[in-house]
């Protein structure tokens, strides 16, 4: 962007070239340090070494479909008394009038809550294992936005607006901070449930290389050496490519892009040798595998995601997004939430235990939550009520990465419908996640259509109370 009047910053590449380091060792080591980031210069990237945040990594546990707040992290004793009744007028007054927000037929939570840990925060019986970590969790009870429809809400939660065309938070952080491990991508995604939600990990207007790499437990795409290639022939092939490309470069003369591309083969080869190791869960002890629920049919899928998340973070991956779809409890709350919670409770608790045990929790921000919550009112009047979508007041939690655990922030009204104390918009949460990484929200930007684009384009206030 050197063509803008009044602004002549040097791109890093130009800086290297001007310093006469085009092919020098310093330039190369810089190139190697962070291949992706050096090759796309639109300003606003940051030097991770200089960031003061405690968190170095983020694991987003996205509960697609929308878990109900009053059954998970926001117990409402008043609901017991009002079961089957209408929302009292004094409360209804402050509930935003949006679609799918009935005020009749409140539905008391069928789940019991008990106070746990030193903090004594209430925990739903849905989460016996996560509950043991309550003193590490910072529960946000006043999350809110205005969109009661799944996909747009998921995009608000992950990209900041409902359209789904802006970069996802993971892509932003991948762009801004890069991967701490040059052998692995900076942003990795595992997903179950609804398809077609790729906008939740897309790169928007950032270069496509920053998008999340959608991965399966088998590994990254294109990692397996094709059939018919022995390790020796692959090695010889890589040597041949290197030799011919070097020869070409020599004939051509100094060129940073060509040089960088030659280096990507080293990186690719290293990724190819190191990645299978990341995905080889056989190396984990049976105790660890059990910790994540890999011994149980119900928990093995999400447990595998969680264990891989730890292994990726441990190796320097910046952002891991795990999606557990299916929390959309319209028809029958119990039949939905009980198995959904069971699928994820042990794996997530295992992840927290493991991160803590290895000391990684201090530098890893873990986020739990869906695109919205659910109505405290029943969706159908039958014997097996469900709950409808409700973005007016829902719960999420944060742990690790400098977050102060054992506390609750914000509150909904007495029936758990609308956030009334300290409402937290997803934009506030994004600003807070950046803050946990030590990133002031305006310092990370990208010039797009001559506009300095930010993660928090609609503003966003850091929730300071989150941090210790």
């Amino acid at each position: 962007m050197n063509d803008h009047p009044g602004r002549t910053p040097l791109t890093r590449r130009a800086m290297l070239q001007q310093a006469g380091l085009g092919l020098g060792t310093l330039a190369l080591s810089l190139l190697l340090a962070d291949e992706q980031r050096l090759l796309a210069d639109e300003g606003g990237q940051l030097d991770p070494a200089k960031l003061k945040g405690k968190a170095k990594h983020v694991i987003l546990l996205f509960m697609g479909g929308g878990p109900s707040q009053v059954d998970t992290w926001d117990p409402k004793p008043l609901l017991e008394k009002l079961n089957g009744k209408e929302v009292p007028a004094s409360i209804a007054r402050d509930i935003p009038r949006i679609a799918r927000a009935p005020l009749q037929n409140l539905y008391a939570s069928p789940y019991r809550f008990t106070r746990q840990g030193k903090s004594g925060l209430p925990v739903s019986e849905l989460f016996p294992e996560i509950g043991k970590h309550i003193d590490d969790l910072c529960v946000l009870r006043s999350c809110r936005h205005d969109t009661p429809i799944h996909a747009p809400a998921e995009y608000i939660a992950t990209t900041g607006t409902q359209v789904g065309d802006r970069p996802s938070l993971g892509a932003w952080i991948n762009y801004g901070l890069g991967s701490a491990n040059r052998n692995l991508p900076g942003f990795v995604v595992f997903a179950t449930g609804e398809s077609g939600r790729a906008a939740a990990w897309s790169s928007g207007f950032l270069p496509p290389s920053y998008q999340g790499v959608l991965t399966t437990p088998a590994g990254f795409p294109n990692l397996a050496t094709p059939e018919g290639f022995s390790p020796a022939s692959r090695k010889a092939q890589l040597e041949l490519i290197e030799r011919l490309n070097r020869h070409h470069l020599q004939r051509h003369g100094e060129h940073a892009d060509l040089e960088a591309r030659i280096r990507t083969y080293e990186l690719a080869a290293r990724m190819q040798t190191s990645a299978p190791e990341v995905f080889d869960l056989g190396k984990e002890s049976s105790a660890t595998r059990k910790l994540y629920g890999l011994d149980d049919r119900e928990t093995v899928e999400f447990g595998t995601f969680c264990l891989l998340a730890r292994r990726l973070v441990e190796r320097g991956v910046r952002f891991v997004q795990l999606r557990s779809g299916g929390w959309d409890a319209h028809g029958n709350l119990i039949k939905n939430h009980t198995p959904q919670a069971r699928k994820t409770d042990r794996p997530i608790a295992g992840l927290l235990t493991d991160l803590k045990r290895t000391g990684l929790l201090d530098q890893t921000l873990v986020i739990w939550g869906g695109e919205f919550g659910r109505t405290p009112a029943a969706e159908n009047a039958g014997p097996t009520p469900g709950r409808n979508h409700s973005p007016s007041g829902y719960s999420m939690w944060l742990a690790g990465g400098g977050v102060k655990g054992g506390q609750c922030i914000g509150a909904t009204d007495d029936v758990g419908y609308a956030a009334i104390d300290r409402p937290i918009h997803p934009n506030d949460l994004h600003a807070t996640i950046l803050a946990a990484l030590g990133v002031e929200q305006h310092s990370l930007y990208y010039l797009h259509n001559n506009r300095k684009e930010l993660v928090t384009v609609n503003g966003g206030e850091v929730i300071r109370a989150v941090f210790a």
Partner: protein
Amino acid sequence: MRWCLSRSLALLFLATLAARVPADASASIPSPATHKIDFRSEIYPILKDHCFQCHQGSSPSSGIRLDLRAELTGENSGKPLVEVNQSSKSRLILLVAGKVPGKIMPARGPRLSAVQVGLLRAWIDQGLAWDERLLPPLERTAKHWAFQPVQRPDVPTVKDKTLVRNPIDAFIVAAKEVRGLQPVPEATRAILLRRLTLDLTGLPPTPAEVDAFLADRTPQAYDRLVERLLASPAYGERWGRHWLDVVRWADSEGYESDHIRPFAWRYRDYVVRSFNADKPYDRFLREQLAGDEITPYSDENLIATGFLASARLSSNEEDKARQRNDILVDIVNATASTVLGLTMNCAQCHSHKFDPISARDYYRFQGFFIQGAPNNLALRDPAGWKAYRAVKPPEYDAAVRLKQILHDQARDQLLRERRAKLTPAQGSALATPEEKRSAEQQRLAREADLLLQILESQIEKAIPETDRPLYDELKKKITALEKQMVDKPQTFGFYSPVSSPHKVEMLPMKGFYPPPYHPEELARARPYLLRSGEVHERGPAVEVGWPAVFGPTPSAKVEKHPRTALVDWLVQPNHPLTARVWVNRIWQYHFGRGLVATPNDFGFRGARPSHPELLDWLASELIRSGWSTKHIHRLIVGSNTYRQSSRMNPINKERDPENRYLWRWTVRRLEVEAIRDGLLAVSGELDRTCGGPSIVDDPRVVRRTLYLLQKRQKAPAVQGLFDGPTGATESCPKRALSTVPLQALYLLNNEFSVLRARALAAKVRHEAGDHTERQITVAMRRVLGRAPDDEERSAARAFFQATSRETESALIPYCQALFNLNEFLYLE
């Protein structure tokens, strides 16, 4: 829809206001002064001393500035601060008099005295006199370089005339001489052949083409090559794809449901055909922006409107007004970016901060499109209809008609029931003509509209029990019959039943809630300024027109055929932007960077041209040549500038490290299409069939990448890897160029690459037999268009020796290694 900070703040602000009850509304406002007011001596000092500290200039507090008369009257924003001649109703007066609850102006400093308020009131009541010398209207912009008419400059004279092959070189060399940049040699003929072939067709030259070109030592060899390439159908496939990027075309709707548009491919083929035919650019624009208005009718013109129809569309959107407005916003933004090279996006919500485009201008521009809609449009294509009728079973029409009757009965019944449920207030709101509705009635009408909106799924459920068996049977029968049928000839285009002189049949669109099509509503549609871009915050009505900075819009012409009038204006020879923007794009696709480095932003904040006179010269050449794109290609690729080698020159590098002044060829990676197509071409598998429906990506598909299904939410994975189109959410003027290990892994391990390597190996074996030396040469000639040199030969030999012991054939990995060479993947 683009969310802006100010938009959310404004909404929040409005909400807060509405929630509060006026505190001291009854208290009186100071009465207006009774004498004739002098702006300069009586009003200006008040504004200057009490208001301008916060409310002037381009970044005023709350976005409100008082140093422009048009801002006070709300002409630009739809949010007037004064009602001329009615001071008691003017927000400015209410604010300074403390009559707006919770807010008083000035926010800082002393309050205005009763006398001062009285002066302001009188000023407003007497017609809001202004002194333009003191507070001039926005004008900087009228002086902006890109808004001046194109002037054909003289071709400069240069010191070293041997460097000049055509006028382009004169401009380039002159700029180089000023900066002391030295000439570099011409690239070799082999490199030039490869550069030209890839640049113009997106495919590498075949070994036979290489031989023929190198053997042709006549002076016309190069020009003949250019003509051959420009005449190749592959040229349109390559350059058409550039255009498709700019116009955000895709095969699906986008957003959550992202339904496939099964006939969107016709527009893609139209674009390819147009480039191949060297359709004059003015004609090209006319067909795309106003194809349905052109007389006489032609299918081709209707297909061309796919440009407008490429807007994304949320078929899940229940609020039909919003759904429609989002489409119009998409169309306005894409049109302005593509043709004018202006980002109008900002002005959707607030007057543009840097360019002379107000929110009013935005909605005036929207007016050009407001009487039309995207749809599946029936074509007249006689052969297509013949084919359709030939296989249509005789009972089909009757079945469809009967099903439609049952369907409509159920719908009408539902509608009656819903109408009966409306409250009297809702009913009367609906009965009131739109423009006469109060704010409350607007809200009620919206509620009522939502209630009356009937979804297909609801209609299906509402079929009476007695009719249900018949209805279900008909449905089943129709589906079965359709399996034997072919589609009616149709295209996904944009059509206005109001301004088009032609009758065009609408065919059904897929989706849960496709946009309703009501010709009578389109006929009534008029543009309104939408406050803060919010569809339900309707401001004053505006006249259809282009941005005021470009002069007046002739209303009579616009009235009848609005989009034709728009194109007439765009293609006027003295239009400051159309030709400049297009030649700049052509330049960018040739050299990797435009003369203006921000091809979609020629506005105040856009990049300045590196060679302003060359830009204008090319723009005037475009117009003089009858808007011939190929003429510009010939000039560019015929220049010495284009033929330069990419060799480094230390002195030049020191003086112009970014190569802004084009002292050498900039080597750059090929686009994803050229990489994928290149693999298919050298392996001999490429299916050169042109056009037709898009194909779902699969490693076994051997058509050009252009023809892979472009689903917005799920673009072919290889496109994401190599910076190709992914979401097509907006006009993409320039692709990113990233270099990451995942790309190397794709070329090493992906099934697509392996399949191509196998095919290439088979071809090589066929040609060279089992003779390793010959295999080495033949494979490299196919991939790089040249034989290996000594070093390459010895590297290849070493590889064969090391590998042959390991695997049955070293040839396949050798072939695949060649796909990974920079020389193959970069435009040199």
